[in-house]
């Protein structure tokens, strides 16, 4: 059985990892082997999302964001009430992380008296902006503790009551500080990336830094913010870059941070596959394809499937005619995590002229397709198209347009790839073209409804070319937009068999979705956290908590099912306000 081999290789990896950790004379004060024992066993990550917490970016390897928890369900969701709100999630600034936050909102880091702040980093703290933390990633829940990150900062929080347990603060050297997407855990080690291109390993119990290694070249203008992922003895790390630099994905040893392999998103030398889709080797080597959103993993085939970002220059000429696809930007890539070799690819936006940045989270679904059982991968993209592929072979199954006003392409070709309409690229007199339909906010899939859920933003604007240099511009330069019209945002439910949108639920905006065995779909509608009926899209429950930063999550603790959402710089945890039915002992407090 393939399953068995997975378990075997996982067992083998524990042995290897221990010996590796022993072999190197670790600089940490703790015994070198401590990181490879106890804590979160990598084998536990093979479990589907449910009563095992929220141990990875997506909760489990399939990225369905579907939890088997059903204590909260359609019959009682109207009793869902606030259990606690966190306080004190302030980003650090200054040399000690306790300097006055930017804007002078409040003095110092208010972690609630005695919360330790652990300081790392190679900067001085002057470039850290401080202030209320900006959350735009996943929260881990492991054994009653939540772990979450913001740019340059990470926290452990008590999952029972929201108390901040420790705060890690990284003095940055600079760089692009977009949202941090979250952390990974391996035994007692926590990992997260910081914008100035370091991968940091923390002791989960104390927040103390065990080590840091460069995750990319800071001088090369990379920025790192993706959520690392653990697959057995591999820690997968991505990076971003808006300047004309090659995107890449790498695997490192979770014990040491030592690189195991690197896979570039574009051809880097003569003879590399895909080179004939670029006007020159030079253009390919500077063609981008960032890797900043976590993908899904199939433990049977050891294939990790992830999306790559836009090519550069993003909006202008410089990448050959529209018939040159610019591989492997804007592609779904399957890489074998043991070898770093690409198993297959499928390009979701050939010759992208709109920064479609096709990194959105793919979802693995095992189900029937045209009456035959299939192992599939589903992905809805910023360019407004939805795709279904066979995830073992990369064979194309379905392409559909879920964005209502999408017009950048002249339909799709026989292989389902959108055909770019070069007249809808940025032009000097302006072209009317659709804007981003979705982005990093995580989608969800429910095996009960057999529907795929994703945010849908509809907009049109005039896209102008402002840099007419025949060599093209650089990075995201050379364009400007005007007359932007919104045609509304929705949460969509998509049938993967047809690619058709089954229902649309209008929202102001959405930051990601969660479905549960309680037959509920949680997500955001502007400042509201809402629970919808996954079959119909009808609202069943709502609470105004502020604009959410990422998808809601759920976990089980002491007999209670928590629904967790982050809004602003606060965590909001909801539980049923009636005693649950699982025979929990008498509840001592009513939190």
């Amino acid at each position, binding site marked *: 059985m393939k399953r068995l081999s997975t378990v075997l290789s996982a067992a083998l990896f524990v042995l290897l990892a221990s010996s590796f950790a022993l072999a190197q004379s670790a600089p940490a004060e703790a015994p070198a082997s401590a990181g490879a024992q106890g804590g979160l066993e990598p084998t536990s990550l093979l479990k589907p999302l449910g009563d095992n917490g929220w141990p990875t970016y997506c909760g489990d390897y399939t990225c369905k964001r579907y939890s088997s928890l059903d204590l909260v369900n359609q019959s009682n969701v109207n009793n869902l009430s606030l259990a606690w709100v966190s306080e004190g999630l302030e980003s650090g600034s200054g040399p000690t992380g306790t300097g006055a936050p930017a804007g002078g909102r409040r003095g110092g880091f208010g972690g609630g008296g005695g919360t330790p702040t652990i300081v790392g980093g190679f900067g*001085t703290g002057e470039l850290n902006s401080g202030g209320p933390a900006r959350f735009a990633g996943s929260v881990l829940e492991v054994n009653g503790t939540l772990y979450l990150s913001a740019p340059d900062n990470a926290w452990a929080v008590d999952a029972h009551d929201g108390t901040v347990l420790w705060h890690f603060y990284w003095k940055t050297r*600079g760089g692009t500080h977009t949202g941090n997407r979250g952390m990974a855990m391996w035994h007692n080690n926590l990992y997260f990336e910081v914008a100035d291109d370091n991968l940091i390993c923390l002791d989960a119990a104390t927040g103390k830094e065990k080590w840091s290694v460069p995750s990319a*070249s800071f001088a090369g*203008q990379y920025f790192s913010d993706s959520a690392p992922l653990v697959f057995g003895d591999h820690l997968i790390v991505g990076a971003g870059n808006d*300047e004309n630099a090659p995107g890449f994905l790498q695997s490192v040893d979770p014990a040491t941070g030592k690189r195991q392999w690197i896979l570039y998103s574009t051809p880097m030398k003569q003879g590399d596959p895909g080179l004939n889709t670029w006007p020159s080797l030079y253009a390919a080597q500077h063609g981008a394809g960032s890797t900043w959103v976590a993908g899904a993993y199939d433990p049977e085939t050891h294939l990790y499937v992830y999306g790559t970002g836009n090519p550069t220059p993003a909006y202008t000429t410089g990448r050959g005619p529209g018939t040159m696809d610019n591989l492997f930007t804007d592609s779904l890539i399957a890489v074998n995590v043991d070898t770093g070799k690409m198993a297959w690819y499928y390009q979701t936006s050939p010759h992208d002229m709109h920064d479609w940045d096709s990194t959105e989270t793919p979802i693995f679904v095992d189900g029937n397709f045209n009456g035959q059982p299939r192992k599939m991968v589903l992905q809805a993209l910023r360019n407004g198209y939805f795709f279904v592929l066979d995830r073992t072979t990369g064979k194309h199954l379905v392409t559909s347009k879920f964005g209502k006003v999408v*017009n950048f392409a002249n339909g799709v070709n026989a292989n389902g790839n959108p055909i770019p309409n070069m007249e809808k690229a940025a032009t*000097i007199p302006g072209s009317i073209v659709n804007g981003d339909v979705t982005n990093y906010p995580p989608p969800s899939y429910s095996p009960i409804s057999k529907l795929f859920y994703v945010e849908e933003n509809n907009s049109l604007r005039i896209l102008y070319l402002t840099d007419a240099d025949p060599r093209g511009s650089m990075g995201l330069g050379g364009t*400007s937009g005007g007359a932007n019209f919104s045609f509304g945002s929705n949460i969509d439910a998509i049938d993967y068999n047809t690619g058709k949108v089954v229902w649309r639920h209008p929202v102001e905006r959405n930051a990601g979705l969660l479905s549960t065995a309680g037959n509920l779909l949680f997500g955001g509608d502007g400042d509201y956290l809402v629970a919808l009926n996954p079959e119909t899209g009808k609202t069943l429950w709502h609470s105004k908590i502020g604009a959410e930063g990422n998808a809601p999550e759920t976990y089980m603790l002491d007999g209670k099912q928590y629904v967790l959402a982050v809004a602003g710089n606060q965590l909001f945890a909801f539980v049923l306000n009636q005693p649950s039915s699982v025979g929990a002992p008498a509840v001592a407090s009513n939190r």
Partner: protein
Amino acid sequence: MLRLTKWTFGVALTVGLGLAVQLGAQAPGRAGRGRGAAGAAPARPARRGNYEQNMRPLAAPEVIAHGKELYDANCASCHAADMLGSDKGGNLVASQNLLNDQNGELIEPIVAGSQASFGMPAQTLSKDDVDTIAAYMHSVAAQVGSQGRPPGPQETPGLKVIVGDAVAGKADFDTNCSSCHSAEAGGQRSVAGIGAKYEDGRSLQNAWVSGTTGFSFGGRGGGGGTGNPVTVTMANGDTLSGKLVTENEFVVVLTTPDDVRHSFDRDANLTVKVTDPDAAHKDLVLKLSQEPNGDTVMHNVTAYLATLK
């Protein structure tokens, strides 16, 4: 603090040198580059990013000036005067070798021929000259903007935005716009004089396409609906009209002309009617976006409106 002092010094240097490079060298001759008349590009900030290349201390001005002379004489024929490359040589500003270089150490081997197989022939330049050229190149790379935008002005001067056929545009205007807008002075929602109101074609086009925002008829911004006229009808038939503050599935909030704020829980007995003054513009944009010649129609109308001085 030491770091602060260094940093401040670095900024001062960058500003000074940036200007020197720009003025002295006429913004290294990027063909067709320069600030446009459209007033789109903001003044160049002193520091365009906080990456290493933006913040590292630069060489003395005379070193950079000498480096530029050497670059122009030895490198510009292939890599272009502005370092952004040509058919014969790559863009050096985006070169990972340059970005990761400190004082020429990564450039020296390339000049000596280490990348000859990639088409970069060996050059006869002394180590000192290469390092001096590197110092100049770093001063240019320091001007790379946010999200990798190239150094220098962000807009090509003299871009011709108005390319449409004004005669065809009048016909398109009559077809698509005349039910609401007159071209006669004093007419209904008149567009007379609109061609004189905007200094460039892009602003004119953005204004007429977007509707009220561009015409300044009303104060609403964006597409969110805030500020739009709204009427709420309550269960007993009473109505309240004003400007919309918020509308979603759960509440509706408006302000009445007396500046009083009214909030309502949404339920089946409450009817809410929001008027979008730009509805016709949205419909037109949607229609044009789906038509093969939609952009041409837009360009023609812009060309026509530009004649209405």
